[in-house]
Every structure is written in structure tokens, then in C-alpha cells.
């Protein structure tokens, strides 16, 4: 009995810390539709500073205040300096804050050396009380008291003050609230800073339970996101309920089912998602509000070129040939370069190019749902990891190494995985979709880590053999490069056909206007479901190639960082094209490679800065600029025919540019 009490106290105290963290998330999400991914990172760095201040001054209170101040300042900086310019661009906001995780983590590591810190407890609270046969640390009761006081204060702020009324009005309908004279900008900043400050304030206290180390940023973020999904967005009560449920489930799970404890909270989330997709106390999310994505909506490539095709085929002969050449040359050129490249490269560059191709395929597969369909998935690593793990597990447990067996098995398993994940995640839209896919990706990470006998745990799978193609082949980096290249090109071709088909066009229609798609007869759910499966299957192939190329799969291949990477590649290269994300993949892999040589410890910082620069300045991605450039070339070349056959192709050049 006393044991149960001890677990209960632990669960409630942990739940209240989660509540305090989730409050900041839920408020900004409800009010501004912003998911602040760096919320956990702010908590972590505030904790690091707090502990350090405590060490030098000996004052616990000063430590807490230092953490509080740091998080508030960071929140202010992030909101005013960056987020404010990205309202209504949810993808960009997410990537920006992911960038900040990288930056904050790396700076923390730079300053503090990356060691976990032990969080101090003030002397007066640093003892235990005996309850029956077990001792319960007094500090846990202090945390509960602190959490309850904060909950009451926040509830009063929300329900009894003018600011709270403004926040609630803004959540219900931001546009109308702003026409009524509520200054959204100031309100948004205030709420954002409040959320960050609460996280900073709780970090010294909560650090006792959550730990303070480099992984805290992600762990804490993930658990508070699960709390938000369970409790529902936009209300402090929801965060409180969700926090306590998750806290208790976590505590009792760890005590009674230690081997599957970290699995159970995901199970709770999935059950809630099935029964109540908006969370237990959630407001209905207004899905139409955050519509303008960071993805530059370039529409469809075909339209302008189709126009040309019509007019030039009327002109016939040479003009038609030139048009075909104009459209085909970049692809042909790229393919030729990729084929002859090994002649000019050493082993090192070849392995780098292999990495480029693998990540290009990974990013392209994400783009099927992200760029074309407008579904922001933050769990795409699930398929990448699964693809690779299937290859490794087949070799390890079933001794199946034949590529011709492994490929279809991997494809089928990844498609089934996508079908399962899609079934649950497509109940949600927008920001919710992002969070739920994230949790599903993490679920696989947990399984890969914990199921030691099957997956090799944190050590992962090593010694995955090179593909067995059925004939004797002595693998070297050149042959491997060609192997990867051929699969890449086949996948590119299939994806290209998919995305330019009637189905692909319908996916763009969903991105543009899902409601209308339904009223002109499309079952949009089924179309999206197919999109998730296609994206999952091709993501799986990229994982398969990775396993073959590197011979190793580790749980990190499922991790959130792996999911974030292709998102950046899509945004950097330009969504709703296939070659854009491929280009983004190339840039990122190359930068990673060279920064790894020049300053290996600062790669996350550089990556973080790349995230920030990309979302702040690169509107539409590289592909947007390159296409403009190429259209200028086209207008020159094709313009000639306008002179020769003025009626058929008049003004073709101008139309291309426009």
C-alpha cells in the first residue's frame, strides 16, 4: 500500500511538471497555431544555467530566477525576432524551432561540455519521510505543492483576468478578436514569453525528475506533446488533466511493467486519439486557419509547359523537338552527370554521393505528402528506420539476404506500417497531424531501443551484408554507387509519374482546397491514405539503401532528428517538386560532410543556423529560383521560333517567364 502511495506521489509530481511544460505549448498552439519545438531545449538550457548559478552563489532561489530569466529572454528573442515573421506558415515555424533545438543544444554542449548535471535540492527539503516501509523524498511533495499553486495561478489568469479573456477570444477566432481591437502582436508575444518563462521557472525544480542532460530537450518536448494530445489543445485544464494522466501512467508503468513502460504512454495517446481526436478537453481546432504553408505553392509544372506543348505542336517539326529538348535537357543532363561521376571521384566522394542519393530519395518520399498534399509529417523516419531494420533483421534472424526477396518484403512491411500509422494519424489535421506523426515515429524509436533481443537495442544491427543480387559480385564503392543510383532513378521515375498523374493532381487539389475536393466527388481521406502509403513505401526503400550502404542500423535512424532532416531538405529545395528536395538533400549532405571535417563538434550548430536561414530567407526553395532561371533560358531558345512561325508560338517566351 505504501509502495502504491510512493508511486502515486511520484506520478503526480512528474505529471505536474509535465503540465507546466505543456501549458506553454498548449497556449501558443491554441492561440497562435505555433508548435514551439524548442520548448524542451529552453527548459534544458534554463536548467543548466540555474544549476550553475546555484553552484557559484549557493542560492537555490537565484538559480531558479536565472533559469526563469534566461527562458523568458530566449522566448522573447524567438518570438519577436523570428516567429513573428512566420505567422500562418506552420511548416516554417516548426523547422525554425527545430533549428533552435540544434542551436541551443550545441551551445549548451559548448559551454557545459555536454555532461548531465545533477539538480540540487535545497537543504531544507532534502530529506525523506517514511510512509510505511518506503521513504518518499519531501521534495516530491514540494513539487506537487508548487504545481498546484501554479495551476491555480494559471487558471485564475485564464478565467478571471482581462488578459485571459483576450487569450480565450484569440483562440476562438483570432481574426474577429483583432478587429475588436485586441492587439494580437503584443498578446502573442506575451503568451509566448509566458510559456517559455514557465518552462524556465520549472526547470530547476523539474530537473530532479526529468534529469538535465543533452537529450532532455527532445524527451521533455515529446512527453509534453503527448500531454497536449491527450488533454487537448488550448486549455490549461486540458494540460493539467493530460499531465497527471501521463505522469501516473508513466510512474505505475515503470513500477509494474518496467520493460514496456515507455511504450504505455504512447498506447494511452493512441487510445485517446481513436476515441477523441481533439483530446479529452480539447477545443475544436479550426483547420482552415493556418493554411498558408512555408512551401511555395508553385502550382503544377505542367501547366505553362502544357500550353507551350499545345502551341508548339501546332507549329510542328523543329519547334516541337526544341520544346521536348527544352523540357528534357535538365533531367538528361543530371542523369548523365550522375552516371559519369564515378570516373572523376575517389572512394570518399563516392560514398558521399551515395549518401546524397539515399537522402534525396528519403526527402522526395516525404515530399509526396508534405509538398504535394500539404500534410506535415514529423515522423517520416519511421519508414526510413523500418526499411533499414527490415533488411538487417531479415539477414540476422531469417538469413534472407537475396535482394529480390528483401526488396518486396521491405516494401510491403513499410506500406503496412504506413497503413497503420496513416489510419490513426489521418484522423487529425494540421498541427495535430504533425504532433501525432511525431509520437508514432518516437514509438518505433522506443521499440528499437528496448526490444534488445530482437533489434539489438541501442547497439542496433551491425554487419548487414551488401545486397545479394543472385550473382557473384565484388562490392566496392563504385558498384555500390551504381546500385544505389539505379534504384534511385527507378524510384524517381515512378514518383514522377505518380505525382504528375491524375491522382497526383488530386493530391495538389487537397492541399489547395480539401473541402471543395470533397464536394466535387473525391474521397479525400482515401486519396491521402494512399499518399501516406506511397510516401511510406518509398521512404522504406531509402532506409533499405541506407542499410546496404552503411551496414549498420541504430535506433537513431528512427529519431526525431532523422525525421526533421528531410523536412528541411524539402523546404530548402522547394516542395511540390521532386528534384527540389533532392537538391536540398545534396546541399545538406555536402555541408554536413565538410563541416564534419572542419569543425566536427559544431555541426549541429551549423545545421541549426541552416534551418533558421532557410525558413527566414529562402522562400520557395532553390527549385523556385532555378526554374525561373531555366525559363529565361527557355524563353530565349523558344523565342526564336516565335519569329519563324509567329502565329503558332507568338509570345511563347513571355508566357514562359510569367
Amino acid at each position, binding site marked *: 500500500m505504501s509502495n502504491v502511495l510512493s508511486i502515486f506521489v511520484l506520478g503526480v509530481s512528474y505529471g505536474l511538471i509535465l503540465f507546466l511544460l505543456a501549458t506553454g505549448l498548449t497556449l501558443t498552439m491554441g492561440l497562435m497555431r505555433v508548435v514551439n519545438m524548442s520548448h524542451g531545449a529552453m527548459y534544458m538550457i534554463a536548467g543548466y544555467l540555474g544549476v550553475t548559478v546555484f553552484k557559484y552563489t549557493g542560492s537555490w532561489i537565484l538559480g531558479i530566477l536565472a533559469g526563469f530569466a534566461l527562458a523568458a529572454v530566449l522566448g522573447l528573442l524567438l518570438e519577436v525576432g523570428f516567429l513573428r515573421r512566420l505567422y500562418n506558415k506552420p511548416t516554417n515555424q516548426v523547422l525554425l524551432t527545430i533549428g533552435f533545438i540544434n542551436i541551443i543544444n550545441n551551445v549548451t554542449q559548448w559551454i557545459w561540455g555536454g555532461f548531465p548535471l545533477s539538480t540540487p535540492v535545497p537543504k531544507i527539503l532534502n530529506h525523506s519521510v517514511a510512509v510505511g516501509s518506503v521513504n518518499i523524498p519531501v521534495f516530491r511533495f514540494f513539487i506537487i505543492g508548487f504545481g498546484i499553486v501554479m495551476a491555480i495561478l494559471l487558471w485564475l489568469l485564464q478565467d478571471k483576468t482581462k488578459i485571459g479573456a483576450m487569450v480565450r477570444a484569440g483562440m476562438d477566432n483570432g481574426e474577429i478578436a483583432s478587429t475588436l481591437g485586441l492587439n494580437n502582436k503584443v498578446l502573442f508575444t506575451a503568451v509566448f514569453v509566458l510559456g517559455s518563462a514557465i518552462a524556465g521557472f520549472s526547470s530547476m525544480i523539474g530537473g530532479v525528475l526529468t534529469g538535465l542532460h543533452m537529450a532532455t530537450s527532445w524527451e521533455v518536448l515529446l512527453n509534453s506533446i503527448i500531454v497536449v494530445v491527450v488533454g487537448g489543445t488550448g486549455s490549461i485544464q486540458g494540460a493539467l488533466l493530460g499531465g497527471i494522466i501521463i505522469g501516473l501512467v508513466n510512474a505505475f508503468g515503470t513500477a509494474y511493467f518496467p520493460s514496456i513502460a515507455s511504450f504505455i504512454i504512447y498506447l494511452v495517446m493512441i487510445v485517446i486519439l481513436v476515441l477523441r481526436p481533439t483530446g479529452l478537453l480539447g477545443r475544436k481546432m479550426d483547420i482552415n486557419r493556418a493554411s498558408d504553408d512555408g512551401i511555395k505553392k508553385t502550382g503544377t509544372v505542367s501547366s505553362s509547359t502544357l500550353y507551350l506543348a499545345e502551341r508548339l505542336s501546332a507549329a510542328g517539326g523543329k519547334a516541337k523537338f526544341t520544346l521536348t529538348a527544352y523540357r528534357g535537357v535538365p533531367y538528361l543532363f543530371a542523369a548523365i552527370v550522375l552516371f559519369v561521376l564515378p570516373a572523376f571521384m575517389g572512394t570518399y566522394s563516392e560514398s558521399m554521393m551515395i549518401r546524397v542519393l539515399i537522402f534525396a530519395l528519403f526527402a522526395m518520399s516525404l515530399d509526396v505528402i508534405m509538398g504535394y498534399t500539404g500534410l506535415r509529417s514529423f515522423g517520416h523516419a519511421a519508414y526510413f528506420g523500418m526499411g533499414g531494420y527490415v533488411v538487417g533483421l531479415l539477414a540476422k534472424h531469417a538469413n534472407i539476404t537475396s535482394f529480390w526477396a528483401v526488396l518486396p518484403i521491405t516494401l510491403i512491411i513499410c506500406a503496412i506500417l504506413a497503413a497503420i500509422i496513416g489510419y490513426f494519424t489521418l484522423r487529425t489535421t494540421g498541427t495535430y497531424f504533425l504532433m501525432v506523426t511525431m509520437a508514432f515515429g518516437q514509438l518505433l524509436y522506443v521499440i528499437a531501443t528496448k526490444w534488445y533481443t530482437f533489434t539489438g537495442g541501442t547497439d542496433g544491427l551491425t554487419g548487414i551484408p551488401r545486397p545479394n543480387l543472385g550473382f557473384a559480385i565484388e562490392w566496392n564503392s563504385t558498384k555500390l554507387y551504381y546500385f544505389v543510383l539505379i534504384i534511385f532513378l527507378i524510384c524517381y521515375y515512378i514518383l514522377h509519374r505518380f505525382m504528375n498523374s491524375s491522382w497526383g493532381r488530386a493530391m495538389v487539389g487537397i492541399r*489547395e482546397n480539401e473541402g471543395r475536393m470533397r464536394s466535387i466527388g473525391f*474521397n479525400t481521406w482515401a486519396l491521402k491514405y494512399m499518399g501516406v502509403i506511397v510516401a511510406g513505401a518509398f521512404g522504406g526503400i531509402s532506409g533499405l539503401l541506407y542499410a546496404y550502404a552503411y551496414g549498420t542500423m541504430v535506433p537513431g535512424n528512427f529519431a526525431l532528428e532523422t525525421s526533421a532532416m528531410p523536412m528541411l531538405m524539402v523546404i530548402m529545395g522547394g516542395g511540390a517538386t521532386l528534384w527540389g528536395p533532392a537538391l536540398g538533400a545534396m546541399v545538406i549532405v555536402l555541408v554536413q560532410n565538410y563541416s564534419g571535417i572542419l569543425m566536427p563538434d559544431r555541426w549541429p550548430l551549423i545545421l541549426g543556423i541552416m534551418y533558421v536561414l532557410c525558413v527566414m530567407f529562402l522562400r520557395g526553395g532553390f527549385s523556385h529560383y532555378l526554374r525561373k532561371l531555366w525559363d529565361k533560358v527557355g524563353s530565349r531558345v523558344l523565342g526564336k521560333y516565335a519569329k519563324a512561325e509567329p502565329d503558332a508560338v507568338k509570345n511563347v517566351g513571355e508566357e514562359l517567364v510569367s
Partner: protein
Amino acid sequence: MTILKVENLTKSFGGLQVLTGVTFDVKKGEKLALIGPNGAGKSTLLNAIGGQGLAKSGNIEFNGKTITYLSPNKRLKLGLGRSYQANNLFWQLSILENVLLALHGSDKSHFQMFRVLEKRKDLRAEAERLLSLVNLWEKRHEYPPILSYGEQRLLELLLAFTSKPDLVLLDEPSAGLPTAQVGEFTETLRELAKDTTLLFCAHDMDLVFNLSDNIMVLYYGTIMAKGTPQEIAANPKVREIYLGSEAVSNI
């Protein structure tokens, strides 16, 4: 022959009762106009029939099938199209693609994953026919945002007719059009809806009286009157609603 049968439809938003026991029929080929003051529940009624906002209770029967809680895409398959009060287009797709997509929507299968939409000859021919009706074929490669408001309105209308539906719901088809254009717009609409049953709501009385065979008056969620345009024009209660009770007593 009755094509649409609405029985005892109720709908409320929170505590606000918007539709109370609405019951009416639409006959095949009929052009039925739905009028009423702002907030009468016209759009709510159309949404309940179109599937954009489901009714709380009651029954909707279309072509002999109950559709009360069916999804919009299934309603379309049964022959029910609709247009919106605000232009609700695919802004980043060309005009041709807008129409092709709508035509594709009434296809049997939506999973043609290798065929290119723009190259489907059957759909293109139909798109040409439809776009020519509204004089937009020449502009087929333009994007909706550069069209004039009137042209956008026509495209909006067209998307509701692409599936050759038996019944089309139109929510304020002429909304926002300058008075000078309404006459021409009405003619185009009449041409498009030649063989189709129409249920439309409108504030523009010229359009209503020009197009409709029958008019139904909705007032705070209940049907107050239904009849031919002449009957409605002569109905004292309708006059009271539209002109205000004082004005009527003055007359």
C-alpha cells in the same frame, strides 16, 4: 417526380436553433429559390443537404436514397452538386486544371496513378465544352487569381455542374456581382442548368424572379411560405418580413 425530400430537419449551433423542423420537396426539373433575411438559415440548410454541415435530426432523401449523414463525395456520386457563396476554387491550379479536376472527381476511380490528367482526351473535350459555355476556354492556362471577379464566379458555378448532376445547390450564385452583370450571368446559369434541377438561395430578387419556378421563404429556421413567384410577391407575410411591419401597415 420528387427528386429531393427534406423532412423535419433540425440543426443548432450550441444553444442557437438555426433550423426547426424544415420539411419540403423539390420536383425533378424544378428551379426552386430559397429566400429569407440574413440569419434565416439558408446556408445552413444548403450545407445540410450538401453534406458540409450535418443536420442534428430529420431526414434527407435524394433520388430515393437517404443521404442525411452521407459524406459530400458520396452525395456527388448520387448526382448532387453544389457551389459556394464565396469563390472556393483551386487558386494554385490553372483554370483548365480546375475543371479537369472536377471532371476527374466524377470518374469511377480516383486512383489513376500513371495517367496524366491533362492528357485525357475525354475529359479535355468535356472541359472545352464547359469552359466555352462561360467564355473561359481562351483563358484556360491562366490561374484563377488573375480572373475578374465575375469570371471567378462563373468558374465557381461551372465546378458545380461538371459532374452532370441531377440536382445542384447554389449558395448565392450572383453574390458580389455588379448589377449590370447579373442579367448576363442569369442567362449563362439558365443555359448551364438547362437539364438540371436547381435549389438556390439568393438575395438578388431579379435573379430569383428570373430563374425560379417556385420560391420558398425561410424565416428563423422555419419555412414560412412556398409558392410561385407571383404568389410569393403577393404574400402579405413575406412583404412584412422584407419591408418591415411598419411599412406594410403604412401601405
